[in-house]
């Protein structure tokens, strides 16, 4: 199916551009800028974490331990004990594998969002990632709304087809048509 067929309207389709309530192009550009910001934030944090050796078995185990240590003892004081048990039983015993997985996946999310490549898949991944962080940090000293802001940004990029403007996805969609179930670009 061509990206420009009536069933899959493209950004240039005047019918789609005439969507009510908003200047469609302004919305698309705004969401793309949101996507780029999100990509920069994820990559900058990824780089910081890399420097701090958090993407190692010991680094990840240490982080999980710090998260659920009470504030009075120098930890974050997160309170979701169910999530703590899940991390302790699943992630901590396999921390080395999870750390490498996180190193690769987080980097790919960031890169995908920054350049707008496979944006829909990257934004789904980012939503899962930020949900996990929300649960991990919940109840602690950190400002929990940070993860709400990031989750909502990822959701908006997904719903708004954030890679179709100022992104690689635009060229991929034009060349290859829609991705399966529109889940990638």
């Amino acid at each position, binding site marked *: 199916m061509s990206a420009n067929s009536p069933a899959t309207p493209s*950004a240039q389709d005047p019918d789609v551009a005439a969507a009510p309530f*908003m200047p469609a192009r302004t*919305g698309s550009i705004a969401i793309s800028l*949101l996507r780029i*910001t999100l990509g920069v*934030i994820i990559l900058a944090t990824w780089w910081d974490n890399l420097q701090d050796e958090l993407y190692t078995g010991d680094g990840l185990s240490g982080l999980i331990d710090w998260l659920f240590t009470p504030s009075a003892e120098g930890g974050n004081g997160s309170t979701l004990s169910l999530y703590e048990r899940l991390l302790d039983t699943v992630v901590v015993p396999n921390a080395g594998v999870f750390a490498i997985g996180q190193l690769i996946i987080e980097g790919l999310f960031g890169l995908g969002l920054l350049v707008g490549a496979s944006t829909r898949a990257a934004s789904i991944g980012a939503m899962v990632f930020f949900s996990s962080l929300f649960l991990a940090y919940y109840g602690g000293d950190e*400002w929990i*709304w940070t993860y709400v802001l990031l989750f909502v940004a990822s959701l908006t990029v997904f719903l*708004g087809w954030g890679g*179709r403007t100022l992104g690689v996805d635009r060229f991929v969609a034009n060349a290859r048509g829609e991705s399966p179930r529109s889940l990638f670009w």
Partner: protein
Amino acid sequence: MNFGPKIQTRLRSLAPTPVASLWSIAIARIVIGVLWLFSLRWKLPPDFDGGSERSLRQWLQLEVEHPTFAPYGRFVETVIQPNFTLFAWLLFFCELVVGISLLLGLFTRGGALLGFGLSLNLGIGLANVPGEWPWAYVMLAMWHGVFFATGAGRAFGIDGRLRGNVLNTPLRLLT
């Protein structure tokens, strides 16, 4: 099934298309409106005390102790802290206005502009405070820029209805 033109238009705006629809931004607008209103709970008048949480007074002290820019820290110390009650009321009122504006989609561009200023102020004031993550304020400011640019109150908001009535007045700039 045959819907009226108004419903067809509305359904069309909800359909997934490769062009961004304002409703996805409107969801974020509502969530961030709740964020501002929720944040009022630790700066409630008349004493602006945070209860079990860190209070506004304590946050200002942290801004003085860990300034991102020295002149900003001095400004907080010499102007804001000595006139705490005045500035606390001002901040409370501004955050309340932004929260209500974004939640209801009422004069959203005005609320977004004010929210952008508040986000920048938070970012500048807190970026150097230990334990703070400055990117959170970058994202918060970015969101308000998006709301302003798109006039995000026109979907799921009062601005959508209001705009026709204020079209010939200066108030239209705020919707």
